């Protein structure tokens, strides 16, 4: 009837006592021994005093005492009943049990590790890339906006604002606390021994305050630097500082000659700051006429276009901001009608949308895939533990009969499962760490904002631990409750391996196998469709020949080649020299490179009226362009040398332009005007071109979109767009870069040759990269899923067979043929697999529509893919069943019957 005085006080005392108990454990043992010894000695003494001889006295004392060892056991047991010592016992017991079932433990750990690892990797990616990609202060409230043309469905919308436009938006809005404008351009850095082209990012002077990222070295560019008489300054990007200047702190405060102006370097930004990918950052001073201050002379200053980023006032939503901007935009459209489409809308967006937008969908698809993988892993482990629990019923029954309480048994099972999950979690974390490194290495460039740092962070760690815990409870509790529920003692009478115990969990385990197979089918379906889509993209008809084609951009020093005539003279010298290089087949001047066309311009065709905006890409090129790129002539003729030399107003168009704007008519001889030239001060205005030829379509708006209308005019007509070259080589284009550059420099050594790359590898890297990445990752998941399913099916079948050995032995003793037994086992397994495949196929038909945005060129219900994966899984499942089935076949009835 003794009660604990107060459970809380008791527990508290136990907690307080624990450290000292732990330390003094040995001392306690010695103490107890001493105490009992003194008792026995005293009793022996007394017995002696009553006349017993010494030996008998001691014997009598011990008899009166009782079993000394048992007493010590009881005292020890009582000491050990603090929960933590019990935990220690449970841990040791659990580990021992796990070591006994080595195979199952290994499989379970492997399964858990894969599931947890994959989940962690994807979560790290999503957390770092989507949720917190930018290091800027208060990045969630920063947004960008675009002028979206309602008649052009494909395009995103205009992001760049002219300077007066930018100033108007900044002054007239009511929803932003601050707004920055950024423009990028080439900046030529004159060193002692030559000129280097750097990518300079011009920012309004409030930008660094706006972004809030502290400088690593030195100071920010501040509004003071934009004052009319301020000294010219600039800041440097971390990568440039490290790679070119080796992190030398002494260059801070020194002057650099940039675009001909002497500027002081005032600071370096930290590594994570990659704003607009600039090598250097320069201040912009804006006024209504364009750029003022020390940068007034920058190239295209008046026509510079800025990308605006703004911080919304607290409480202002993206929609509210868009509405406010729309009002301003309508007003501005009346003032600058050329800059605004007939019907438009302002759309606002988060900062990351520009880069990550396309990839957002892919991330969530991957997330779903990972979820499925985790489910497969969990059901695998559950199945394994359930099977094992069945065969441990006898063990539990025995322990119950010698006094273990139900709570104790459940607790021990839970501890055991937790150990399992913990080990799985550790391996899972290691797998995640390695997997993330591998994933980043494989990821295509520009998939993520360059500022995002992908690493395993604490949030992910917590999530992993949570998943571990959840799997523990999921996997550990079910078998625990199952095994301990009901009568424990009657189990002892049963041999423990009969039919009963197998069919006890049979239904649930079967369901798990079916579920696993179905999930694997869905994963495989996704991967299979992406694979086919990827091959479809690779197969797409480009319309031109990308092999052995080299493209490069040419950058001129400030002030050089400022007129169309000078430009012509330059290229007319350069192009022949390039062609003269051994290994070069042909060369041309080009403003862009396929599969991208030239800049868009609205077009006017006399005699045609239309309501929607008509536009076309404009490529200003030399006569060799068509030969070099390999585009076929369909009607009329191509640009000739004399056309280009005399800058005749003639144009070649592509099929799409002809069909769309001329319909069935013959376009040859008709006139077309490219309105964009009306806005350039140096170009002839109101210039109509005569159409002299039509070429076949080729991909000019990326590989996924159909070709856009495009027109080709002599580059000598006006300075337009960037200057570049396309070179057709006999052999590997990459090896020709140096000699081609030298040919250019032999005409003018101050011209920078940049972005030189073979078109073919560019297409591979850029256009194929994202689908390839998605394909790769999804395939890895599907493969892991398949492996897990095979392992799961195999282990379940193997266990099932081992449990049924008794029954099989009986059957064989009663005359069943080994073949029959084999068939029985196989049928059971195959039935589950087939059921899973059917369910999985149905689920795929329903679910694959969610990845339709990533699939191109093949239907989401593609029968080839779906049937192929069914075959793959059926084969794999069959193989997984065969081995255990064979073991059943080899059962010796005598051995089986004897084995109880």
């Amino acid at each position: 009837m003794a009660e604990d005085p107060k459970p809380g006080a008791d527990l508290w005392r136990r907690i307080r006592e624990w450290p000292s108990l732990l330390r003094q454990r040995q001392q306690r043992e010695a103490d107890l021994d001493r105490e009992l010894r003194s008792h026995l000695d005293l009793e022996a003494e007394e017995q002696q005093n009553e006349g017993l001889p010494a030996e008998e006295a001691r014997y009598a004392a011990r008899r009166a005492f009782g079993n000394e060892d048992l007493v010590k056991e009881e005292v020890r047991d009582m000491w050990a009943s603090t929960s933590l010592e019990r935990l220690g016992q449970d841990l040791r017991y659990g580990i021992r049990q796990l070591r006994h079932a080595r195979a199952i433990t290994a499989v379970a750990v492997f399964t858990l590790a894969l599931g947890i690892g994959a989940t962690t990797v994807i979560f790290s990616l999503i957390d770092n890339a989507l949720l917190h990609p930018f290091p800027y202060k208060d990045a969630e409230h920063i947004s960008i906006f675009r002028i979206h043309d309602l008649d052009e469905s494909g395009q995103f919308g205009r992001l760049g604002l002219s300077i007066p436009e930018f100033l108007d938006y900044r002054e007239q809005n009511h929803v932003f606390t601050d707004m920055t404008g950024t423009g990028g351009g080439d900046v030529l850095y004159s060193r002692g021994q030559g000129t280097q082209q750097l990518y300079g990012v011009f920012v309004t002077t409030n930008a660094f305050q706006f972004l809030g990222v502290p400088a690593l070295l030195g100071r920010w560019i501040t509004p003071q630097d934009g004052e009319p008489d301020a000294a010219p300054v600039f800041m440097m990007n971390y990568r440039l500082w490290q790679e070119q200047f080796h992190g030398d702190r002494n260059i801070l405060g020194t002057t650099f000659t940039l675009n001909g102006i002497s500027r002081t370097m005032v600071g370096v930004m930290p590594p994570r700051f990659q704003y607009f990918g600039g090598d250097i950052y320069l201040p912009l001073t804006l006024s209504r006429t364009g750029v003022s201050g020390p940068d007034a002379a920058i190239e295209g200053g008046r026509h510079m276009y800025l990308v605006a980023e703004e911080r919304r006032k607290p409480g202002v939503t993206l929609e509210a901001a868009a509405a406010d901007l729309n009002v301003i935009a309508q007003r501005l459209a009346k003032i600058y009608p050329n800059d605004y489409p007939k019907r438009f809308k302002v759309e606002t967006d988060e900062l990351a949308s520009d880069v990550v937008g396309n990839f957002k969908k892919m991330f969530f698809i991957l997330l779903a895939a990972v979820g499925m993988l985790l489910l497969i892993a969990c059901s695998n482990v559950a199945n394994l533990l359930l099977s094992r629990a069945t065969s441990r019923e006898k063990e539990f029954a025995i322990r119950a009969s010698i006094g273990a309480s139900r709570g104790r048994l459940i607790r021990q099972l839970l501890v055991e499962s937790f150990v399992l999950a913990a080990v799985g979690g550790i391996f899972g974390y290691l797998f995640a760490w390695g997997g993330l490194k591998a994933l980043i290495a494989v990821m295509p460039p520009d998939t993520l904002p360059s500022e995002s740092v992908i690493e395993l962070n604490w949030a992910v760690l917590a999530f992993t631990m949570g998943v571990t815990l959840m799997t523990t409870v999921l996997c550990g509790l079910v078998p625990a409750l199952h095994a301990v529920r009901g009568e424990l003692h009657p189990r002892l009478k049963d041999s423990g391996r009969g039919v009963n115990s197998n069919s006890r969990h049979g239904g649930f385990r079967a369901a798990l196998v079916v579920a696993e197979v179905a999930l694997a089918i869905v994963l495989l379906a996704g991967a299979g469709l992406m694979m086919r889509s990827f091959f479809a993209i690779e197969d797409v008809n480009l319309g031109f020949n990308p092999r052995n084609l080299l493209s490069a951009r040419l950058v001129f020093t400030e002030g050089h080649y400022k007129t169309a005539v000078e430009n012509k003279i330059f290229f007319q010298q350069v192009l022949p020299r390039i062609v003269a290089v051994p290994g070069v087949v042909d060369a041309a001047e080009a403003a862009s490179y396929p599969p991208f066309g030239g800049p868009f311009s609205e077009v006017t065709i006399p005699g045609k009226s239309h309501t929607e905006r008509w536009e076309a890409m404009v490529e200003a090129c030399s006569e060799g362009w068509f030969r070099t790129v390999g585009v076929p002539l369909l009607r009329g003729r191509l640009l000739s040398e004399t056309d280009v030399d005399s800058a005749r107003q003639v144009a070649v168009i592509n099929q799409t332009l002809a069909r769309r704007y001329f319909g069935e008519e013959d376009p040859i001889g008709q006139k077309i005007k490219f309105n964009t030239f009306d806005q350039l001060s140096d170009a002839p205005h109101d210039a109509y071109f005569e159409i002299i030829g039509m070429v076949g379509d080729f991909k000019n708006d990326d590989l996924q979109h159909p070709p856009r209308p495009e027109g080709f005019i002599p580059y000598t007509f006006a300075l337009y767009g960037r200057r570049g070259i396309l070179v057709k080589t006999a052999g590997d284009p990459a090896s020709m870069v140096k000699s081609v550059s030298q040919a250019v420099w032999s005409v003018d050594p101050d011209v920078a040759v940049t972005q030189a790359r073979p078109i073919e590898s560019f297409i591979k890297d850029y256009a194929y990269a994202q689908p390839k990445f998605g394909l790769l990752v999804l395939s890895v998941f599907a493969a892991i899923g398949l492996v897990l399913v095979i392992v799961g099916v195999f282990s379940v079948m193997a266990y099932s067979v081992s449990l049924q050995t008794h029954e099989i032995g009986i059957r064989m003793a009663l005359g069943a043929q080994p073949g029959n037994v084999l068939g029985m086992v196989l049928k059971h397994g195959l039935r589950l697999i087939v059921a899973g495949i059917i369910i999985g196929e149905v689920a795929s038909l329903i679910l694959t529509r969610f990845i339709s945005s990533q699939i191109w060129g093949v239907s989401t219900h593609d029968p080839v893919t779906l049937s192929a994966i069914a075959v793959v899984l059926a084969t794999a499942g069959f193989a997984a069943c065969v081995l255990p089935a064979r073991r059943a076949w080899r059962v010796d009835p005598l051995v089986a019957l004897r084995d109880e």
Partner: protein
Amino acid sequence: MMDGRISTMTMTRESPNRIELLQGTLDMLILRTLLFGHAHGHEIAKHIQRTSDEVLQVEHGSLYPALHRLERKGLILAKWETAKDRNREFKYYRLTPAGRKQLAAEESKWKQFAGAIARVMWPVAGTE
């Protein structure tokens, strides 16, 4: 009533009630023994035996789990001391205030229990 030996050794788990009863009773007897002074294990065993007129034959060993349990619960304190009349050390136990309180509680419960049994066994005339 409780003739025979109080032994924790032969108790089985099939009858948890009996465990608690016997364990609890032994605890109470130990506390009572310590009420008027300290004693070591052997003395306590002898005391219980003597004062119960040899009815309660406490197997000496069974005392020690009880003693250590009581010590852990903070109802008694233990300390090695030199015996008054000998040149030897024994582990002496003494009651704590908490132990004193517990003893009082156990005592009243036991009286209630005994009274209830007595009423059933030997009912007062007229209440049968």
